[in-house]
């Protein structure tokens, strides 16, 4: 078991650093390239959401990223203290976005759910949002033959 907590300002330049930090943290679990790519993509989605939606119109804030490895699983928590989500059920729908004019696709949550083994989102309006995702490594190989 290992743990890591990162806290950084909600600026888009930190997206690349955040996803690569999580990937580096996961390396001892010997993920396959495609598993690592899944994790980087899901982390990028969650962090981007904090920046473009969570702190929209708030002039910035902090993102907290917590990682934990346990056995063959990596759990990542991404949280902000921003606006929160009014209707989570709607937000989870594929192609639903509150920012279509900015060319957001509304596929962020769908990607997180599809690419990770477990996914959960908690949110409170005016208080913030926390996404918790787990990736269990070696599942692909285990299913072959």
């Amino acid at each position, binding site marked *: 078991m290992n743990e890591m907590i990162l806290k950084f300002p909600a600026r*888009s*330049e930190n*997206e*690349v650093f955040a*996803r690569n930090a999580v990937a580096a943290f996961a390396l001892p679990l010997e993920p396959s*390239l*495609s598993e690592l*790519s*899944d994790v*980087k*993509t899901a982390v*990028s*989605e969650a962090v*981007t959401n904090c*920046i*473009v939606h969570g702190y929209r119109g708030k002039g910035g804030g902090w993102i907290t990223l917590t990682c934990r490895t346990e056995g063959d699983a990596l759990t990542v928590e991404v949280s902000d203290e921003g606006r929160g989500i009014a209707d989570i059920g709607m937000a989870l729908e594929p192609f639903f976005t509150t920012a279509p004019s*900015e*060319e*957001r*696709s509304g*596929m*962020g949550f*769908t*990607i997180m759910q*599809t*690419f990770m083994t477990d996914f959960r989102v908690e949110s409170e309006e005016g208080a913030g949002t926390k996404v918790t995702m787990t990736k269990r490594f070696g599942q692909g190989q285990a299913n072959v033959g």
Partner: protein
Amino acid sequence: MNLQWSRRGEDLYLYLSGELDEHSVSDVRARADRLIDENAGLSRAVFNLAGLKFMDSTGIGFLIGRYKRLKRYGMGMYLAHPEAGADKILALSGLYSIMPKIQE
């Protein structure tokens, strides 16, 4: 993000390389749109994704945005050689039904 291009006959080729996310997209969006405007009247645009090492859902929005712009000029859009990670996102979002994947 880097964007290179070439023109062959009636086709505009755009080569994307680097990592496409919310941070890098605005610059490449402006450059792609300028290229499309300058080449309006060609028959199609092919986005070659071979050099794209990372893409998240920002890439979906980016590609749909360029698709709409090309459509206004009557130009078709095609995708070529996505890496496995990008390919998974493009397939999941159904993008290949409007911008087919081709082998050139």
